[in-house]
């Protein structure tokens, strides 16, 4: 599968995943939505290890939606890890948290998060958010080429011994 504009959602709460998927549907955003259930899975997915080694099935996302409060590894742990992966640094990360804890916000930005959004409570607000994400991140936001088509290629190139 071609490197397309897919989302990666890291979220342990099934309800939230459900409401998010529903909100995207209602916002008519058809892009594939890959879901991982905790921080470790997210890391595994992004690094393409274990179950996620098949990049056709589990391509690198165009946007990474990250919950903070998760089992095993938290969203902040994922950000710490991600911060150390230069080839992944231009995947935009939108943190979606249940609360606007000041320390969380500061920490998230420090670790390279691109946005910090408190999860909306009502359905309407979720749809609104989904629409905004679609408009902003998928349509308006520009990312370096290396972060789109070139991302995987660069990664591979770097890993090849010729370089």
């Amino acid at each position: 599968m071609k490197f397309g504009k897919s989302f990666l959602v890291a979220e342990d709460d099934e309800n939230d995943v459900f409401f998010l998927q529903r909100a995207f549907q209602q916002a008519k955003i058809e892009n594939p939505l890959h879901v991982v259930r905790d921080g470790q899975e997210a890391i595994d997915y992004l690094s393409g290890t274990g179950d996620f080694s098949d990049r056709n099935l589990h391509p690198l996302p165009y946007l990474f939606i990250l919950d903070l409060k998760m089992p095993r590894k938290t969203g902040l742990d994922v950000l710490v890890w991600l911060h150390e992966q230069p080839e992944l640094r231009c995947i935009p990360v939108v943190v979606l948290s249940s609360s606007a804890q000041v320390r969380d916000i500061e920490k998230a930005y420090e670790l390279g998060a691109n946005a910090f959004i408190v999860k909306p409570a009502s359905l309407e607000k979720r749809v609104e958010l989904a629409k905004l994400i679609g408009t902003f991140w998928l349509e308006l936001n520009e990312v370096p080429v290396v972060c789109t088509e070139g991302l995987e290629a660069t990664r591979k190139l770097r890993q090849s011994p010729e370089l």
Partner: protein
Amino acid sequence: MQPVGGANGRRKIVSTFVAVGCLLAVSVAVASLVGLRALKLNRELARASEAIRQLEGFVSALKDAETGQRGYLLTGEERYLGPYKGGEADAKRGAEELQRLVSSGDLPGNEVQRLSDLTMKKLAELEETIKARRERDPQAAIEVVRSGRGQVLMDEIRSVAGDLEARKQAEFGKASARVKETNVTRTITFTLTGLVNLAFLVWAYGRLSREMLQRDAAGTESERERELLATTLASIGDGVIVTDAQGDVMSLNREAERITGWGISEARGKKLIEVFKIENERTGQIPENPIDKVLRLGKVVGLANHTVLVRRDGSKVPIGDSGAPVRRGDGPVEGAVLVFRDVSEEREAQAAKERLASIVESADDAIISKTLDGTIVTWNGGAKRIFGYEAVEAIGQRITLLIPPERLDEEAHVLAQLRRGERVEHLETVRLTKDGRRLDVSLTVSPLKDEDGHVVGASKVLRDVTARKRAEKELMEARKQLELHAQKLEGAVTERTGELRATVAELESFCYSLSHDMRTPLRAIQSFSQLVLEEDGKKISRDSTGYLRKAISSAERMDQLIQDVLAFARLSRHEVNLEPVDVEGLLKEIIQERPELQPNKADIRIESPLLKVQGHVASLTQCVTNLLDNAVKFVAPSVKPHVRVYSERHNGRVKLCFEDNGIGIEKEAQLRLFDMFQRIHTGNEYEGTGIGLAIVRKSAERMGGEVGLESEAGRGSRFWVELAGVDS
């Protein structure tokens, strides 16, 4: 020394004078006799000489007359008649003189008579010749002369006069020999008497001068003695008053003047009792005057104790005195002498000594003095109390009596130090009591020195510090206990702190989970309820849709509550750094951001310019946001909220006021308004979690400020926040 100026001396002087007087009288008598005789002889000599002179003069006058007569006779010239006439007159006068000498007995009368007769004849003869020469002729005259009658007369005169003269000359010679003899006698007599007198005078002078010298010597000696006596009396340190036998003051010396206040001139002749008023210091009674007693008893008397002298100015001086009679030999009492002195200083010194002694005696500490060989000399009450020995038991004993055997070395050490003149201060040691107890004492030993500075003994001050030692021990024990306790406490505190930290950590994680985990199900409830409403709202009953809506709004409220609690918790936890904050700008931003504060919903008037405050932007934002929210929220239905925001400065602090036209708050409610979870409106009339004002107060307090309100039900409210101002 012999009695000076006695009868003997006087007799000597008188006898000397008598002797000198007698001698002088004899001398004068002798001199007078000699003198008188000489006088008589001189007179005789003078008369003889006068007679001779008269006789010669008489003859000479006759010769002159004769010479003149001859000249005339020869010449006939008248000029020779002058001498004739002069000679004639002189001869006549001479004859008269001779006659006078006869009457005075110097010349024999008959011879002078004869001489006188002859002279008359001669003069007549001369006259006759001259007459003859003049009337007749010179020859006639010469004839007369040649008759020789004249010659005869003249010769006769000459002879008689010569006889007389010779006789007188012989007399004169005899007299002048006698005068000469007398003169010698006189000279000898005078010389002799003079010499005798001189010798006598010398003797008298010697005798008198000896007497005078003796007298002078005696006089000077007595003068000196008197002066010495007066000086002595004046300079005696004691007052001295001398009276006569009647007790009247005769003299008083300088000290007596000073003490009594009476001057000698005023006091003299006064009754002693006037000058020397005494009384008993304690009873005020007037004792018998010592002088009266002296005069009465005729012997020395002393004065009773505690006698005070009442001075002239009425002040009183304590005195000591004695009186003694004045008498010569065993004679009657002629007067009395009173000797007294001002004893105030002595008395004070005595009193001071007694005070010191009583201080020493009553001191709590044992105060003991000892000789350098360690014999106890004095022993005060404190020593008796501490050691149990009576003074009589202790004095004379060795100081080692008090020293436990194992500490005897210490005494030697102390004594060595004392001999060097050094003190031993606060030596903590142990001493023995009479009943064998050992006492902890603090010992201070000072050397006692005599007037020359030699160390002759020592004073020891011993303080029983047993109680103190015990207290110290107890204190130490207590301190140890305390330390132990403190350690325990510290352990406990550490433990508690740890616990507290754990609790805080738990709280934080609780807050965290509150914000994440607890909100998640709420969102689920809300969202699923909405979902049902959206998808199947038309299939279910109207009541059921109502219930679902209530579930949704409850979840929403719950969510708000959680968020408020978290906000409050954040305020408590987070550090707040103060900085100048532009309140006006901040308010305007807040108003812009919040829909319910927009002009169409609320009329918010800011009285520009608002004063800047020292604050923390986030906390202040929370604070004023809540206040504004409240101001516009609690208004009567259908009333447009009016809010006036203004600032005032009070003593360097700024009061931000929010005045609204809301429903107001009752007095009782105002008290608990700022507490957590206090909602004063029941039901759903006004939404709220009851945390807003708690956040307001907490944030103000975190910024070092205060909050408050003035309100009345139905009349609006005025909330205020007071914070530190910024110096412009």
